């Protein structure tokens, strides 16, 4: 049994854990065992203009259990956001990521916090993967002061500068040139890091994407364009929107790799490969074959353009959390009960964060005018509406 591996715990929840004795029934520390395990990915990679990496991925119990916990956390967070939206605590747009967690988690496992990630509006889980806290997520969703953007951004504008997460963008496709700009800055400062610019199958048809790809290939930028292909651009299936749905091939002269996006280990392998490639040879496209269980956003039921059978079929066969659960159980890294305990723990964490976020106050009225311009210039600027509103720069 895996209990013998549990002597010391250095997991994220370590602070909450009592020293392990026999009271394991409440909490389950994540194993620190790093003995390598080799797992085969579900499907081989398909490549375009490059050599596909091997199907065998090195991992270890600690990593697998971390994957499980992180994905369970993200899943629970998104489902909680669903309920909050229906309770009208979250307004506007809310795009949920459940089903696609493997992409966020697998990517984080392959890179460091110095590499940049930029994505579109389905950013809650990517933000958490980059180190964002649940409190920041829920506060921002509810528009409170404790949010990561102080309540002024909303669901589509999560950013975390200190871990190089550049958002969080509402306009489809506009983040890809920004991502290539980040890669350009990395090349300019010669710091051997890469940028992952994520976009969806809908954004893959944007012209600015190809413009940015052209420039990145021309200037040899360490940019990795990741297409999270969940097969639907809002309500339009990919075969109705794209003449060539082989998004990894669309780079033409830029190499591409197609990855099973529901397999966190495959994602990890692909991202590792991509990072090495980008640092040496310039841009590469990764297509993550993934799926979202919810509709495009909370205003979309998600069942008018696809059948419920399809959704439940994917959930049964390809669910990322289930895959890791099976792996953990088959390698005897934890018991069923322990995994259920992790899920309970995660649920509690989410509920606590929501409760805390609900207590966070709404932003002050003066916050309306902060951060429009940057302070620190030592000059005053007078707005047109000089009597009441004045944007002061210092």
């Amino acid at each position, binding site marked *: 049994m895996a209990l013998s591996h549990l002597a010391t715990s250095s997991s994220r929840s370590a602070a909450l854990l009592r020293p392990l004795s026999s009271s394991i029934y409440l909490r389950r520390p994540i194993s620190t065992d790093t003995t390598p395990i080799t797992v085969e990915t579900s499907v081989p990679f398909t490549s375009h203009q490059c050599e596909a990496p091997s199907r065998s991925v090195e991992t270890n119990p600690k990593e697998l259990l971390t994957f499980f916990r992180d994905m369970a956390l993200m899943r629970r967070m998104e489902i909680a956001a669903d309920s909050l939206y229906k309770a009208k605590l979250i307004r506007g747009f809310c795009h949920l990521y459940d089903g696609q967690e493997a992409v966020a988690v697998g990517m984080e496992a392959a890179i460091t916090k110095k590499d940049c990630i930029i994505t579109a509006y389905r950013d809650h889980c990517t933000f958490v993967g980059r180190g964002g806290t649940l409190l920041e997520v829920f506060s921002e969703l509810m528009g409170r002061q404790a*949010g*990561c*953007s*102080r*309540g*002024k*951004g*909303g669901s589509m*504008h999560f*950013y*975390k*500068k200190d871990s190089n997460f*550049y*958002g*969080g*963008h*509402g*306009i489809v496709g*506009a983040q*890809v*040139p*920004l*991502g*290539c*700009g*980040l890669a*350009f*800055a*990395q*090349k*300019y*400062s010669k710091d051997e890091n890469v940028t992952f610019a994520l976009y969806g199958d809908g954004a893959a048809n944007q*012209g*600015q994407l190809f*413009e*940015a790809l*052209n*420039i990145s290939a*021309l*200037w040899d930028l360490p940019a990795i364009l990741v297409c999270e292909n969940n097969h639907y651009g809002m309500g339009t299936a990919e075969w109705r929107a794209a003449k060539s749905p082989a998004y990894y091939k669309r780079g033409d002269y830029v190499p591409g790799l197609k990855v099973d996006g529901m397999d966190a280990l495959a994602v990890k392998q692909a991202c590792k490969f991509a990072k090495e490639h980008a640092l040496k040879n310039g841009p590469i496209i990764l297509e993550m074959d993934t799926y979202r269980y919810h509709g495009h956003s909370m205003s979309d039921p998600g069942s008018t353009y696809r059948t419920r059978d399809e959704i439940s079929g994917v959930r049964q066969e390809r669910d990322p959390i289930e895959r890791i659960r099976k792996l953990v159980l088959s390698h005897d890294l934890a018991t069923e009960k322990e995994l259920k305990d992790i899920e309970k723990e995660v649920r509690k964490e989410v509920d606590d964060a929501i409760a805390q976020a609900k207590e966070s106050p709404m932003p002050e009225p003066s916050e309306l005018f*902060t*951060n*429009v*311009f*940057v302070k*620190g*210039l*030592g*000059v*005053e*600027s*007078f*707005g*047109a*509406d*000089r*009597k009441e509103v004045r*944007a002061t*720069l*210092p």
Partner: protein
Amino acid sequence: MAAIFQGVGAAAALSSSPSNSFDSKKLLFSPRRSFSVKKGASVVVVRSDGNVNLDLNPRGRRAQQLIANAVATKADSSATSSSSKPGHELLLFEALREGLEEEMERDPSVCVMGEDVGHYGGSYKVTKGLATKFGDLRVLDTPIAENSFTGMGIGAAMTGLRPVVEGMNMGFLLLAFNQISNNCGMLHYTSGGQFTIPIVIRGPGGVGRQLGAEHSQRLESYFQSIPGIQMVACSTPYNAKGLMKAAIRSENPVILFEHVLLYNLKERIPDEDYICNLEEAEMVRPGEHVTILTYSRMRYHVMQAAKTLVNKGYDPEVIDIRSLKPFDLYTIGNSVKKTHRVLIVEECMRTGGIGASLTAAINENFLDYLDAPIMCLSSQDVPTPYAGTLEEWTVVQPAQIVTAVEQLCH
């Protein structure tokens, strides 16, 4: 690209030394707001009080703190020496280049992106020679993809680089409108202050010499609503260099509007390091009877009209507003309080232009001081025609300005 180097003849006629019509020594020192002098101030900001003709000593008035790591320049010498060096003469595009070059030398994170800015030297020669000096990574030739390279500039700025994005013609930046509006203007706000976008977007715009409708656009009217950006328009070599440098040093995104016909203006500018305040208007000619607010090329039409007006006995006060967003309502307000009559002369179209906003702003804030309704002379609401005579009629001409002043002051 037939219309690249044009307007030399016309520009020379509107050259920047109409100083004979007013006495530059009789400067009006209306009480200005005081800038706090911070420690470690390093660069002299020379307030441009009527210093169109720079044979005068540039007054090293107040030092302003800009960035903590600003290199200390000859701030002391220009403040103390009363007879500073006479300066050097150059054309406006050379002044822009000088400003850009100095900033690129001073700060290695400044880079230039644009079409044909590198090896070609820039379609208006503003970046000539910079690629050989600073290399291809700092002076980047981009493909013709405004949307994406503006986006890339903004992305690079988010990390701390200071790109200067050039639109070969401002009109082309309409293709990058989404990036400028949503990302450039708003990211600082939507990220709760985490990211700053110290980008400069510059390029020539305005009505040129028969360039056609699509190449004669005045984008300041389209961009003025975007929150979070600053807009400035340069009109003389002196303020072109100063504004360029200030824009690059600013932590906010700045759009610097140049004008196709003003690139060959010649003026004498100081040798020492100086910058112009981004939010400040320039007093071109102090006066008593009417305040004429203008910017960019129309400044020269106004000064030409001013000559005629002076001969007719009027005393117009001419202010080059320079800062299109935000308006320098301080300078403007003081002037309105003095003259009680306002005429706005602009090159934007009538509908939704800078003049329209300025009219609203002045009415809102200074209605009590006005003796007559504000008059606004703008270009006609038409696409700029190709034919020379028609093009002349779309833009405001000096004769119209004279008539307007006479009407206003009757």
